[in-house]
């Protein structure tokens, strides 16, 4: 993949996060990407690096880096039936207290930092866990957490017809593994 990077500071909407609303982990998945972030003011991938510092009897410091336990907290999701399969699945997980594979799907991150239709993307298995439901006046909320669960794959996301990178969120992407 050849890269032609954009210039200037990236807008917040240049980092796009999708959840596969098919909730179907298999060798050749067919993704149905649902974009995350509507009504969400602040959304970060918390990497939670696992680093332990130890000091031996010679006063030498050693650092044991055992990797990351990344997760995302989506603190605002208004239950919206027009979100289709994603809403139905989140509703079922929350109301039927589903666990395990029923909560497992793919997530995809896209960093729209290049010109053109093809952008760099990362897909990973994840577990989606609603944290509560109900909430204050204004709408039924189902805040949820996304726990990354490995098999991270770098690839590309194709936004067919994209001319303005700031409009990528409006075009459904197609993920292809590998660069």
């Amino acid at each position: 993949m050849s890269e032609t990077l954009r210039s200037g500071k990236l807008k917040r909407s240049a980092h796009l996060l999708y959840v596969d609303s098919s909730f179907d982990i298999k060798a050749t998945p067919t993704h149905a990407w649902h974009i995350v972030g509507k009504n969400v003011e602040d959304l970060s991938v918390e990497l939670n690096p696992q680093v332990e510092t130890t000091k031996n009897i010679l006063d030498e410091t050693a650092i044991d880096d055992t990797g990351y336990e990344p997760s995302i907290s989506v603190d605002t999701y208004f239950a919206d039936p027009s979100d289709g399969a994603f809403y139905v699945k989140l509703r079922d997980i929350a109301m039927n207290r589903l666990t395990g594979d029923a909560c497992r799907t793919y997530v995809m991150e896209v960093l729209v930092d290049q010109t053109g239709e093809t952008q760099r993307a990362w897909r990973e298995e994840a577990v989606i866990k609603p944290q509560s439901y109900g909430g204050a006046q204004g709408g039924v909320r189902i805040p949820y957490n996304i726990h990354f669960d490995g098999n991270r794959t770098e690839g590309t996301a194709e936004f067919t017809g994209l001319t303005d990178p700031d409009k990528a969120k409006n075009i459904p992407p197609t993920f292809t593994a590998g660069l």
Partner: protein
Amino acid sequence: MNIIEVMKSILSEFPKISVSGSEINIDLAENDPTSFVLSSVGDRLVYEDVLGGQTRQHSFLLYAVFSGINDYERIENSSALTELSVWLSTRSGDIVTTTVGNVECTGELLSVTAGNGRLYAVEEDNTITGMRYQMTVEAQYTVDI
């Protein structure tokens, strides 16, 4: 309809306005009772989500010219403003379109709050039927950019 047109339409549906057959005028008032004037006084960004979608708040002043010949009528006038304030708080979900550059973006009305309804002015040459009341109205709405 943009937020001003949506609010004009909503106010026109308020029973005490629709029954009276009064129109909601924009900015310029008629001096006869019962007339209503909606005046836009500002629009601000409340917050922007991570996808760039905006929640905005539009502020209005609503003027109403009522007859206030005695206490009975004046209580009726203030009661009407109170009823309007409560009725507006139940309104949401209307589709709002906002033009950003050359693009028409859709969104929805989230909430309407109203308050500070009070007698604002009495015309010097018409102290009986020219009582002007004022109320502030705030409308929160989304713009899916």
